């Protein structure tokens, strides 16, 4: 099976920022991403959990993008503009994909 190098970018960000982040990602020409709810965690602002929350201001989401390595810089620049002043984590890992033309 042919495998191709890719980058997996995961941005954990406050849920009110989700739309802004995905708009910024799309503006770079990247149309593929996955948004996942984050159940809870802990950080510099203390512990939090999604349980029982009714305000959209208290949740976090993970936005995951798998892209060709040459698109990484554009994506990070766009994402960083949104994430920079906010609570969140940006991580990049090496990945392999099977159908390179889709990324």
């Amino acid at each position: 099976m042919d495998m191709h190098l890719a980058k997996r970018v995961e941005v954990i960000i406050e849920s009110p920022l989700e739309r802004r982040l995905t708009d910024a990602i799309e503006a770079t020409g990247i149309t593929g991403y996955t948004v996942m709810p984050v159940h809870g965690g802990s950080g510099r602002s203390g512990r939090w959990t999604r349980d029982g929350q009714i305000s959209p201001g208290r949740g976090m989401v993970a936005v995951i993008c798998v892209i060709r390595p040459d698109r990484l810089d554009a994506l990070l620049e766009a994402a960083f503009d949104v994430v920079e002043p906010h609570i969140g984590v940006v991580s990049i890992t090496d990945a392999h994909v099977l159908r390179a033309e889709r990324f």
Partner: protein
Amino acid sequence: MGNIVSLAADNLISPIILAFVLGFVAALARSDLTIPEAFAKAMSIYLLFAIGFKGGAGVAAHGIDATLVGTLVAATALSFALPFIAFALLGALTKLPLLDRAAVAAHYGSISIVTFVAATSVLESEGIVAEGYMVAAAAVMEAPAILSALWLVARKGSKSGSVDSELYREILLNGSIVLLVGSFVIGTVTGEEGLASIAPFIVDPFQGVLCLFLLDMGLVAGRGLLGSRGDLGAGAIGFGMIMPLVGAAMGLLAALLVGLSTGGAALLITLSASASYIAVPAAMRVALPEARPSIYLTLSLGVTFPFNLAVGIPIYIAVAEAVIGSN
């Protein structure tokens, strides 16, 4: 005074207050009791829809009177004005930085719809009728406070607090505002006939859902307090109990100027005394990311909400009865 004590005593042993206390105590005792997020949101949608629909049906039944426009104008003005008072009071009582003070001020100019629902429930149990359009007053009070708080930040020369068109859209078309106004309009259009057709869903189970919802609020409030130990000083906690009374006094003044009934005045006072924890926190995370949720959410949900629920609402109703008279 006797009336306040009697109302407070009745209120404190009502199922909704005891459900809140159960959640609060469970959280402080570090119980693993939780309400799933999706269920909590579903209950919140149910309560907003029910209260909006019933308010609209009330307007359809009793008609629109001259005080409607005055009430909406007064409610909007209160929401714009209260953050300035809250901001100044915080400056006097605490050493919180500018952005925290502005974010807290936004919460206290906006409203807590659950406090409003709880006050409506107490009024119903006391047989006091309020104007149906008070639901619309609640809706118009959600957003203006956010703009006042952001203006306060901009005036002080901070780089934070910029508002783009996307944020305006999110503030004005916040889900709770859309649902409240939308169900109010449906209730007004379909009237009592419409209400009767869905009463088994939105009237009969209402108190039970409110109990479960307040159980969840108790859990969230208790866990918020536990998680923010050390962030809130005595001055901030004092603010969380003084500001509702200041807001209540402003609400009473507005109710007198507009000419609301006892029930309507009690609700406008309650709205002015309450602090947001749904719409405003989301807006603050976008507009003032440096402001700390452990300050503004804990004050709003962990201090002011329980204060209003247990002590404030009986006081506000008794004051409305004393000043405007029982009707």
